């Protein structure tokens, strides 16, 4: 009886394994770490569900811990117990994890699929591969949205980032992120610093003070946010007139939730988000993680994600394949931060600068906040 069972079970397993493209050497469960919310949902629909359709026995668990990925990976490393398989992080976190040896260095051309026309992955992603551990996924931007119904009558809606400082024309609260990154750049830009000199100025103590002085002009009218969901909530409530947040969140507020909110693309700050594979996985789990990443970052999958959220795919070859929103049926092209009409005046997150100056400027910014 027992023997028959064992035989039956092993036959069933062999059949299942054969039908699932030789899954036998790969772990059958996988923990993906991401940011939660609409973004994670887009990854689930565009990457995880099609992948699971190919491997029906695979157990996929999502952990919404990307916000504290660095700290948690450090703790896991110290405890000798890595429970994550593939982790979604912003580029700066990927660089830190790579420097600390917590993320695995990879050969992009070897791990990732080439573009359909045969271009190697490293050329297809181009400059966006900012670290040897980082597998780029999307380009997103931090930019401003405003309440269309709070624009005073007879005035043009705000269209430039410096309108945030114009309390006379556009009275009302603003919401800004509770950290110096982006805010300092915008402040200097609106204080008359040329765009290509912003980081030269910000590197000096006088420049930092100048940026804080500029922020002082609106400090009394600022609500500080720390989670990406805050500004959409504040805008929907009418608590603030304008606020910065990620462009995909604003897209969701405007198009999906139908709130009276408008976009300001001027001086949007581009940043990257992508996967890393933690160092120290067992062979089976590593094989699974690599297989998933290879699948989830091919040209079609990256383009598919744009059906669910307005972030630009990191591969050049994906851009022409971006289609319509999966439910609303609107053309997603014009909602991409990388769309030429939106990208007239942009800034790219300066990784080197902030890696060098972050601690120093953070301290000054926090001291200024507490004043």
């Amino acid at each position: 009886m027992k023997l028959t069972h064992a035989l039956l079970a092993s036959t069933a397993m062999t059949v299942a394994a054969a039908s699932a493209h030789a899954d036998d050497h790969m772990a059958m469960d996988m923990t993906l770490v991401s940011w939660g919310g609409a973004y994670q949902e887009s990854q689930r629909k565009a990457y995880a569900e099609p992948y699971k359709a190919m491997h029906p026995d695979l157990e996929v668990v999502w952990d919404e811990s990307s916000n504290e990925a660095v700290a948690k990976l450090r703790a896991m490393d110290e405890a000798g117990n890595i429970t994550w398989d593939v982790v979604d992080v912003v580029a700066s976190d990927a660089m830190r994890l790579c420097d600390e040896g917590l993320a695995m260095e990879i050969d992009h051309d070897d791990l990732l699929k080439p573009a359909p026309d045969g271009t190697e992955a490293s050329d297809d992603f181009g400059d966006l591969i900012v670290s040897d551990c980082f597998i780029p996924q999307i380009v997103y931007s931090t930019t401003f949205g405003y309440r269309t119904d709070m624009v005073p009558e007879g005035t043009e809606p705000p269209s430039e980032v410096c309108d945030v400082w114009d309390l006379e024309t556009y009275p009302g609260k603003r919401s800004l992120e509770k950290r110096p990154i982006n805010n300092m750049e915008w402040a200097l830009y609106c204080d008359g610093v040329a765009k290509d000199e912003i980081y030269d100025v910000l590197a000096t103590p006088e420049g930092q003070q100048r940026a804080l002085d500029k922020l002082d002009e609106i400090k009394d009218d600022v609500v500080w946010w720390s989670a990406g969901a805050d500004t959409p909530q504040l805008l929907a409530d009418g608590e603030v007139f304008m606020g910065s947040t990620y462009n995909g969140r604003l897209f969701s507020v405007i198009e999906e939730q139908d709130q009276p909110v408008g976009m300001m693309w001027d001086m949007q700050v581009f940043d990257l988000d992508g996967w890393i594979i933690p160092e120290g996985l067992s062979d089976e789990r590593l094989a699974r993680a690599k297989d998933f990443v290879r699948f989830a970052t091919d040209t079609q999958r990256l383009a598919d994600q744009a059906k669910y959220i307005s972030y630009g795919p990191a591969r050049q070859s994906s851009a022409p394949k971006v289609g319509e929103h999966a439910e609303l049926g609107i053309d997603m092209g014009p909602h991409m931060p990388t769309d030429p009409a939106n990208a007239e005046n942009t800034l790219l997150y300066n990784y080197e600068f902030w890696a060098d100056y972050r601690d120093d400027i953070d301290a000054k910014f926090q001291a200024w906040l507490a004043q």
Partner: protein
Amino acid sequence: MTITIIEPKPISFVAPVVAAFGAFAGLLVGTAQGNSLLGLVGGAVITGAMAYVFLQVVRQERIMRWLTVAAFAIAGFLLGGVAGGIVGTLFGWFFGWLIFWLGEGRYRAKLPPYTTSLQVFYHFLFRVICGAVFIFLITPILVVMPLSFNAENFFTFTPEMLALNPEGYSLKHYRDFFTNDNWQQALWNSVSIAPLATILAVAFGTLAAIGLSSEHVPFRRPIMAVLISPMIVPLIISAAGMYFFYSRLGLQGTYWGVVLAHAALGIPFVIITVTATLVGFDRSLTRASANLGANPVTTFFRVQMPLILPGVISGGLFAFITSFDEVVVVLFVGSAGQKTLPWQMFTGLREQISPTILAVATILVAISICLLTTVELLRRRSERLRGMSPG
């Protein structure tokens, strides 16, 4: 019961007091309308004048009170629609009542005749403070409940909701909770972790309490302190300690790891409630039982257990709620596969502000109320039993 003969009070006392209440109510209304100062002054003047007119000029209590309710309801409706009308009705009823209650001196009716003005003042001040504390504690919980029926995906009272328009309300967030895999998985995890953690906590906690209340056990106080410590040590410290310890043991990120961690957190509650019940337990009953030939195990289950059961159950309920509401330890000790409801709510709040969280909160509040009602009923039963047991 009237114990003091009441007499009308001078208008010079009544009008300012009513005006003070009016100023407060006016401040609320004025702030809602965007001008606090105007509301404050307007409220004081209107209600003060009303007190004068009602008590000195008209003196028709029934008619004036109905008129006040009607006038305030209409004013509220004009300012804030249906919801404003309801608030206005309440305010109208309150001020109509307040003016005559003060003016006729009825507030002294239930106080002894010899109380001084200061004592009367303290008597009512105490009540007002108690009421304010109650409102302060309960409002945040109550505000959440109507918001969970929001038809929008934000934490916002929409104009439709304020107008009590049925279109502004929906059950979609409850539907989301019951159909969304993430929430259902979290609910299932909570429901499968909490009972087991409770059983472990109750078993160990009861044994420890019985042992610690026997007089021949050495070092009772230090042992008690150690066992109670999970309740006193900041959770984040227990959590970090458990994380590294459980990682070495291979328990981190497993179902049993979370169950054990939650059991450790629940044990102090069981120990405290059972120890308290044991104070009223008569030791001579166990000696009598032994004298009749029962071994200690039989004695425990047949004699001691039934008498301390209320303490055991209320301890168990606290242990259950601790596990059910706990977020810090599970974030450390659990992995994504053990994501409990509070964890899901925590990440949901940070990453995506969705009223589904409020729907879950409302459900959890309802469950907590049921559990606490049970505890209270058991406590009363225990007191009744203790009263009957031979001292």
